């Protein structure tokens, strides 16, 4: 494939070097973890000031429960989190990810500049390839975790968290070098994640892992990446906003015999937590760095200059005060939840950041930041739930392994 053929969709038809790039107008967005989504027995949805994805009407028509998430009205579930979770583990499920942001970085110095802004090494990417990476502040704290794709020699696509898109754009724009252009294309595109082992029966010619390709499906130009947030094989697909409903229904129709299910954010959260994939706003924050979060693999210290490097290097050399660890409850009981305290022998050693009942294991699991000396695989800890302590054990990643 020639470089120029990659990703015409996100570049847009007729979009050339002369176009003036602007940040799109946005509503005020705010960050909200999943844990804030269900404040009471029945969800109270405030529709005012929440954005709707191009699939909103489809979700409502199919009976999804809609909740505010990161400034958007999103489906939390259609039928049941457990059913949707199992559909992804066993067959295939589809999630609306239209709320996620798409930033384009372009210009003669785009590559070298991005390498000073992100922790992973952009130089390792061939055209059409993507990598997981972090955008850090000066203190090494995590502004966002994202996937950076190289879509041509000097053009990059950053797929970022919905709740952080504006912040990422402003941060990048504030540090922008002279020969770099930055565009926010989020408002133009819809996206879905199609995840599960039977995805290979749904599409032929899938891109290689972490690669992105342009395809045409039933007359619709789409960009398909072999990426995901579930631990299963799968793709993330971006398309024109105006094609969203058609694409969504086409995939559900084609996937019917494979047992495809439309899935909500609830299942997305349980699936990612079983794999110990972090959720920004819960497990990651501007007060936490990738080393503490156990994600040093995505930091390339051989790069001599990127924002946050000095602090991260110090953390790496001296060790962090706390570490993010996965854990599993020892007994059947109440599931762990974010903000529950963690104890060892009566001493408070940390706090849960993500927790749920794992539908695959039918058991309580979670992740917690705990003080480094206690963060040992196999160590016994206690999770305090409504004033009572329940024993748990620190585990290796991932919490769920396919048998």
């Amino acid at each position, binding site marked *: 494939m020639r470089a120029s053929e990659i990703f015409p969709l996100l570049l847009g038809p007729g979009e050339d070097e002369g176009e003036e790039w602007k940040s799109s107008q946005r509503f005020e967005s705010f960050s909200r973890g999943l844990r804030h989504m269900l404040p009471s*027995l029945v*969800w109270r949805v405030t529709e005012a000031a929440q954005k709707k994805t191009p699939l909103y009407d489809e979700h409502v028509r199919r009976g999804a429960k809609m909740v505010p998430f990161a400034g958007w009205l999103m489906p939390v579930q259609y039928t*049941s989190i*457990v059913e949707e979770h199992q559909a992804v583990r066993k067959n295939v499920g589809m999630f609306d990810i239209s709320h996620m942001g798409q930033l384009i970085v372009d210009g003669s110095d785009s590559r070298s500049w991005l390498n000073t802004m992100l922790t992973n090494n952009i130089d390792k990417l061939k055209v059409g390839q993507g990598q997981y990476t972090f955008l850090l502040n000066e203190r090494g704290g995590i502004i966002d975790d994202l996937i950076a794709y190289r879509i041509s020699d000097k053009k990059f696509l950053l797929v970022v968290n919905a709740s952080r898109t504006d912040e990422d754009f402003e941060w990048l724009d504030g540090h922008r070098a002279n020969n770099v252009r930055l565009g926010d294309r989020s408002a133009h595109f819809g996206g879905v994640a199609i995840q599960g082992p039977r995805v290979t029966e749904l599409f032929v010619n899938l891109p290689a892992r972490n690669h992105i390709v342009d395809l045409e499906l039933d007359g619709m130009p789409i960009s398909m990446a072999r990426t995901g947030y579930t631990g299963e094989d799968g793709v993330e697909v971006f398309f024109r906003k105006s094609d969203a409903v058609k694409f969504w229904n086409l995939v559900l129709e084609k996937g019917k015999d494979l047992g495809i299910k439309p899935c909500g954010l*609830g299942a997305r959260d349980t699936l990612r937590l079983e794999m110990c994939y972090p959720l920004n706003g819960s497990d990651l924050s501007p007060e936490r760095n990738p080393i503490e979060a156990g994600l040093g693999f995505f930091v390339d210290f051989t790069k001599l200059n990127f924002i946050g490097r000095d602090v991260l290097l110090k953390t790496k050399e001296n060790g962090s005060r706390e570490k993010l660890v996965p854990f599993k409850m020892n007994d059947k009981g109440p599931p762990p939840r974010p903000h529950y305290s963690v104890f060892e022998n009566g001493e408070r050693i940390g706090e849960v950041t993500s927790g749920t009942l794992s539908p695959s294991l039918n058991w309580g699991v979670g992740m917690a930041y705990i003080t480094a000396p206690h963060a040992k695989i196999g160590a016994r800890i206690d999770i305090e739930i409504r004033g009572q302590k329940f024993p748990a054990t620190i585990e290796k990643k991932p919490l769920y392994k396919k048998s």
Partner: protein
Amino acid sequence: MNVPDDLLYTESHEWIKREGGKVRVGITDHAQSELTDVVYVELPKMDRQANAKEAIAVVESVKAASDIYAPVKGTVVEVNKALEADPGLINREPFGQGWIFVLKIDNADDLKNLKDAAAYKQQIG
């Protein structure tokens, strides 16, 4: 959505069945369908005294922990131990085997503050 006519209801989605000087309490069909996948129930302690609208039990779904409130002032005289082994009873039989606790009520007049089926139907639309 099933809202039996012979029960009383609270704004917080508990149902109440009068049994002489006692009331049996659970969560409504609407509530269980909103929660889905109940995975854990923390029952109230026997003989616990509670005021109206005091949280005395917890129902947990995959995603959230939700407080269950005493609908009127009273004393816990029975709890549904079957929910410890099979919390899914709340999803399958919210008005039957999925009941949560029984309160001996202090004053039958307190029941006048609860909603009838028509009022609850209106609330959940």
